[in-house]
């Protein structure tokens, strides 16, 4: 997700002038990009000290919070867009965070590594857990405590009454709309509270 083209692809889903909340905003690149190219305003949420510092250096509003503690600090529907990019799979409270995202934002955009991408399937068939660019860790040291697939997310979204407005995969910085569950390394979903 750190790749620039991935970022631009996701940024293009955010309507110009939006008020944005970026959950797990990292070093604030996307928020800075949205501010400069799409006249957006907003805040990033980040837990890591070095990332918080990078955001302050970049001039991005950043709130140091632990997402595991929820989003109680934000009012219902107080953002146009809530982003949760490459973040959801690190959280223990995945499902409640998804609901919180839909509560706080009019639109939610989520991205995560697609475990069903075919090289991962091959690797599992060979009897080992995948180690790829999108999933670059060993099974014993991965921060991705949730592994799910493009298809799994559709089920989870439905279960939580979310209306999927758009969804596609990404592979090497390009959108994948044909059989994304098999052919994309990253899954992207844009949804509303339904």
């Amino acid at each position, binding site marked *: 997700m750190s790749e620039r083209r991935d970022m631009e692809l996701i940024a293009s889903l955010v309507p110009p002038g939006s*008020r944005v909340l970026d959950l797990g905003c990292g070093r604030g690149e996307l928020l800075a990009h949205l501010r400069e190219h799409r006249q957006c*305003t907003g*805040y990033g949420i980040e837990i890591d*000290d070095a990332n*918080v*510092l990078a*955001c*302050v*250096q970049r*001039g*991005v*509003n*950043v*709130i*140091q*919070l632990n997402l595991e503690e929820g989003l109680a*600090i*934000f*009012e219902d529907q*107080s953002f146009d867009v809530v982003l949760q990019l490459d973040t959801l799979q690190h959280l223990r409270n995945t499902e409640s965070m998804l609901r919180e995202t839909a509560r706080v934002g009019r639109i939610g955009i989520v991205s995560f590594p697609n475990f069903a991408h075919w090289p991962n399937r091959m690797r599992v068939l060979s009897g080992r857990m995948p180690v790829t660019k999108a999933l670059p860790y060993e099974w014993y040291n991965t921060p991705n405590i949730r592994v799910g697939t493009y298809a799994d997310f559709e089920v989870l979204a439905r279960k939580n009454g979310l209306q999927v407005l758009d969804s596609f995969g990404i592979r090497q910085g390009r959108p994948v709309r044909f059989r994304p569950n098999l052919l994309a390394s990253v899954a992207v979903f844009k949804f509303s509270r339904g």
Partner: protein
Amino acid sequence: MATLGHVTPSSKFFDTPLPLRSGAQLRDYTLVYETYGELAADKRNAVLVCHALNASHHVAGTYEGQPKSEGWWDNLVGPGKPLDTDRFFVIGVNNPGSCFGSTGPTHVNPATGKPYGADFPVVTVEDWVQAQARLLDALGIEQLAAVLGGSLGGMQALSWTLQFPDRLRHCVAIATAPNLSAQNIAFNEVARRAIVTDPDFHGGHYAAHGVLPKRGLRVARMIGHITYLSDDVMEQKFGRELRAAELGYSTQEIEFQIESYLRYQGDKFSEYFDANTYLLITRALDYFDPAREHGGDLARALARATAKFLVVSFTTDWRFSPARSREIVKALLDNRRDVSYAEIEAPHGHDAFLLDDPRYHGVLRAYFDRIAKEVGR
């Protein structure tokens, strides 16, 4: 990093009365202040530093001939430091009611010709900000690049954004709270009772009796000091360590190292701090509550603020806990203000805001760096 070297305080006399929140007024008054760095020709690079309970205008640098007279925030303010005096013109000002030079209880009351003592009017955070604004008027500074403060100083910085929203670009509020909790007020009350029940207090007019209520001040400071540290730091520094090899089986003697430390801190404090000032400042803390006039709704109270904010808290600060800072952050978010919030994992408790923690200073450096660029420095 270079140091500021020797600094000298200035003072300014104001003969226009200062109306106070209580309805009383200061007929005239003097403010003592220090400045560091140079005021830019366009006067856009001024930063006001507000002091906390027992501090003063002496923020940074040392006084000539007194090598140990380092300012209380010297690790933060100076050439090349996070608040860089090569770029900013930094002002430290002593508040009215203090015992460090600005008009306070030890000064002569123009109405009686005797020291104010207990007759010094109750001052509030809002009154201090009004006094500070007049000093800026006198210095010809219309708008501050930032107001910065920790603890009670952070409350002043917040008050600036409400009383003079157009006069500051940034508010940096550290280890502070939108008001005191009942527990905070309780600690203040115990400290005040220690002072006023000292037999040498004489209703606050101890000067007329030629004595000082030092015992009360000692106890007040000991209580305060406990609240500034975290349990962990106290455990680590002192634990249950004894001064002697064996238990003394006495109830009066100092046996544990922590007792010795607290008594030392109390003694030191009682040598230089004025009891009436302690009462006044703890009361100002108790009273601060910008939400009060808005039915307790902090978001409504902060709606007036237009500054950009940096809020910083420390994880082990139980006096002004991170949850209190998050209340400020939430109220700003509700108003869609520009705000960044850093929650620094530091073991030192409330005192952390005075210490040189690399993560904390890194965030301040980055933030002031941005402000400097914004004001063309």
